[in-house]
């Protein structure tokens, strides 16, 4: 038995590292245990093929918590966030295309060709989204209140949210309340007419969701991806120079600087619970490490069922954890390209390849992609979010060649027929490449190497239950004071001394650092003990 530590963090994903760094900064002796041989969790850059760096899981980052960047001095440790411009290029089905720029005026100009009405609507719409996202941003920083509790701090945070909403003014307040539970297709239908614009914006509302754009609640999911995006930018595309693994590397440097001990290739077998209290962990090597508290960056299902075990938990709590919906729908395809894709209508290389390429020609296209998955099959024509980081960051690929990373949706974790075996994996890869080739006919011949990750691969490689990239779906019933389960949404668990700090907690998934930051605050609030 080694230790004891003040805290053990299970999993060196970005949230785990954030929590560890803050605990170390507060003077705690912290050990981070990572199952894989590399740190980063789903924020990792790997040379799938030698000489080519791929962001193998998350290939974009969300709104990083500004306090994290500042407090942990991440810029000094080498973090450079690249905001792509244009953010999105989306080919339409008629050969035209859509470009969304960081400068709203430029987007308006670009839209004017496609639809003057949509160009008119762009600025007011993006302002509304900006206001709604600002309200959410305030909620993201808060620890969810215990609704029926009596803690004045909880009441205060609810009141603050209410005040934030009221500050919008009557008209916007009403509109924000109205749109929150809506279907993103309805919201966009109220504002825009162009199919490719509606499809491309709606894609943000279904990313990672087992829902189509016509399902209620997808407006929240859409807003989730716009928190912190800033004025007028819709579907923001932020990457990390060198790959998203550079973020977790910088976090690790910061954590180590605060005395945190980070060990890789150290899978945790289970959390030791004595008399209802977490006292340490057992590694799969059999080694036991003692600690005053244990913080899990694993998703709630893994944490409670694999690491703790249902026998340590109240049956009602077990039922709640069982009911968390994961339903992964994303697959990843990684390609090494001998040349850049030539899109019909824009065959030459240009700024359109800077951001993400979105295959989302219409709402109906997305909805049909969902229909396949709804009945248990992978989309024949999936929604694709394509990123070619080597265009703006040549160091990630051998000179003259390119790396392409594609998030494909929908690939349901549970297939109605067959399973995610090698053949299904290749069929998925073919569907993705085939779909993209309809827009960029040279693609197929440009491919030098291909690597496909199914939802099952995502589960096995990154420890994401059912391959869900958010550690649990972003539906209204699984957010805020309901995340990960109602009654335990404050980073604490029914096991004393066991905390959660991953995306399965408020405010959820995406590379943001918010869950890790909030968790560290709550752990420290409980005392250094």
């Amino acid at each position, binding site marked *: 038995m080694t230790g004891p530590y003040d805290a053990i963090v299970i999993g060196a994903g970005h949230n785990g590292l954030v929590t560890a760094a803050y605990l170390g900064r507060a003077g705690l002796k912290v050990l981070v245990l990572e199952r894989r041989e590399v740190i980063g969790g789903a924020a990792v850059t790997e040379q799938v093929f030698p000489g080519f760096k791929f962001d193998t899981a998350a290939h974009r980052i969300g709104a990083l918590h500004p306090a994290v960047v500042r407090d942990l001095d991440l810029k000094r440790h080498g973090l450079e966030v690249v905001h792509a411009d244009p953010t999105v290029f989306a080919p339409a089905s008629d050969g035209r295309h859509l470009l969304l720029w960081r400068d709203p005026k430029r987007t308006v100009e670009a839209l004017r060709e496609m639809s003057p009405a949509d160009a008119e609507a762009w600025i007011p719409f993006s302002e509304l989204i900006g206001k709604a996202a600002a309200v959410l941003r305030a909620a993201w920083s808060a620890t969810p209140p215990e609704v*029926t509790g009596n803690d004045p701090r909880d009441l205060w945070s609810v009141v603050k949210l209410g005040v934030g909403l009221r500050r919008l003014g009557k008209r916007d*307040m009403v509109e924000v309340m109205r749109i929150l539970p809506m279907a993103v297709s309805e919201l966009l239908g109220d504002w825009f007419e162009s199919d490719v614009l509606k499809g491309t914006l709606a894609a943000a509302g279904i990313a990672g969701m087992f829902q189509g754009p016509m399902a209620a609640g997808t407006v929240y999911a859409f807003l989730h991806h716009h928190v912190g995006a800033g004025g007028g930018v819709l579907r923001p595309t932020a990457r990390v120079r060198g790959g998203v693994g550079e973020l977790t590397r910088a976090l690790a440097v910061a954590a180590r600087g605060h005395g945190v001990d980070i060990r890789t290739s150290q899978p945790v077998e289970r959390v030791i619970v004595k008399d209802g209290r977490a006292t340490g962990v057992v590694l799969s090597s059999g080694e036991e490490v003692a600690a005053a508290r244990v913080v899990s960056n694993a998703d709630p299902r893994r944490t409670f069922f694999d690491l703790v075990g249902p026998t340590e938990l109240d049956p009602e709590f077990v039922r709640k954890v069982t009911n968390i919906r994961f339903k992964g729908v994303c697959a990843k395809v990684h390609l090494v390209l001998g040349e850049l894709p030539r899109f019909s209508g824009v065959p030459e290389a240009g700024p359109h390849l800077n951001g993400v390429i979105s295959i989302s020609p219409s709402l109906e296209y997305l909805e049909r992609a969902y229909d396949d998955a709804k009945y248990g099959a992978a989309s024949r024509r999936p929604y694709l979010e394509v990123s070619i980081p080597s265009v703006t960051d040549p160091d990630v690929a051998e000179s003259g060649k390119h790396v392409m990373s594609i998030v494909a949706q929908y690939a349901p974790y549970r297939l109605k027929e067959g399973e995610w075996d090698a053949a299904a994996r290749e069929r998925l890869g073919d569907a993705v490449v085939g779909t993209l080739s309809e827009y960029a006919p040279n693609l197929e011949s440009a491919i030098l190497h291909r690597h496909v990750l199914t939802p099952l691969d995502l589960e096995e490689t990154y420890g994401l239950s059912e391959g869900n990239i958010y550690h649990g779906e972003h*539906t209204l019933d699984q957010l805020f004071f309901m995340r990960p389960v109602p009654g335990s949404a404050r980073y604490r668990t029914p096991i004393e001394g066991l905390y959660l700090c991953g995306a399965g907690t408020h405010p959820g998934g995406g590379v943001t650092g918010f869950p890790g930051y909030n968790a560290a605050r709550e752990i420290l609030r409980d005392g250094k003990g």
Partner: protein
Amino acid sequence: MTAGHRFDAIVIGGGHNGLVNAAYLAMAGKRVVVLEKRHVLGGAAVTEEIYPGFKYCVCSYVVSLLRPEIIRDLDLPRHGLEILPLESTLTPLPDGDHLVRWADHDQTRRELYRHSPRDAEAYDDFGKLMYQLAVAVKPILAMVPPDPTSLSPKDLLGFARLARHFRGLGEEQFHALFKLMTMSAADYLDEWFETEPLKATMSASGIIGTFLGPRSPGTAYVLLHHYLGEIDGAMRAWGFARGGTGAVSESIASAARRFGADIRTEAGVAQVIVKNGKAVGVALENGDEFRAPVVVSALDPKRTFLQMVEPKDLPDDFVDAIRRFKIRGSSGKVNLALSELPDFTCLPGVGPHLRGAISISPSVDYLERAYDDAKYGAFSRRPYMDIIIPSMIDPGMAPPGKHVMSIFVQYAPSDLDGGWDETKREAFGDAVIDTLAEYAPNLPGAILHRQVLTPWDIEREMGLTQGNIFHGELTLQQLFCMRPTVGWADFTTPVRNYYQCGSGTHPGGGITGASGRLAALKILGGRPR
């Protein structure tokens, strides 16, 4: 204008809510006139002899949520209201099996046990929870919604009361209610049951009248409705009014007349007369004018605000909000006169199952596929159907030995691709009969007369905009203080002395009479503004 045209209040529309409103106003001593456009009273709650000797419940066909205080206050049984119980719900299955839920608890338990012992156990626990939640929701349905944008003591007090009510529920019930409000019916039921036809038939109540599939969030809370009917004790779950649904309207009208209300049919209102921002009367289509210091519209919000008054009399924001109010119709109705009873393959012959509801909802996937057709602009090729045979419950509905069948059908989108016409209406009717014939092969040969109503017909004949049976979709963003729009959920309107009392106001939808009653209380209690 003659003195006979002067009243204390004018109610536009003789649907059940308009009649309830008039009855309460009359009971308080007001001289009220109800102006109904059609030749019969009842709006969507009518019984008509469309084919000689056969009485059709043309639109609405069952009663469950009619407020007991209305039945009591208006003494409706004395005016002829008699509710007969619906004994069962039969779900025939394509493989020749079936699922029946009976009024008798033990019988249902045995039947469920046959499909799944686990579900038989869970069904009682589910019923208990729903009962508790129904009790929790009931006071909310009975209150005039406060305005979240207002800082007036009355509204703040309303919200404080609401907050206290929720806190009083306790954590478990609050969370259960939150899940019910935000989840999809299919996901919610997945947490409880495994029998497909049980989940499908129960989730069907969540999609009725809504343009969503059972897997879309926001469809779960309607599950409560079934249990709300139960707690009131007036009737158990669903019932059928002797003489058809029109008898409900007739009894309310009779009560209203007894209190002195003047009820006129074939008196279509063309316009509300507004002078200096104040409603002073109405102009009929035939040119007559009626004057009163109070004008109440029982029409849906689109008609109430976009047809009855000029946009210039309303604030622009308000007009925009009403334009955006979602009122897509999603259902149709087929009424049949039959020479003999349908003979179901799964339960041959005549039996008690024909005195209950028959639900064509073999699986959640079946309902989703029905929805898929509609979301792309077609009617369901194999629709969901909720069927009753009124003549089995009340023999007076058809000549001896003959029968009437009432078939509620979903989905039939109001915005059918290319629009509705006679040919498409009949094709829709054929799809209904063909689907039903798969379960009861003798049905096509037994049809003496068939009436098919699409949303197009429901709009033209009953005056329900887009054929929406609830005067506006019952989605989260259109409920409570947002129905029909924020700031105007208390039955008042931006036009002074003009009120709304239809299903487009809180609590909305179904034959409850609640909107009509709450509006009357508001009118009687509110000082002139």
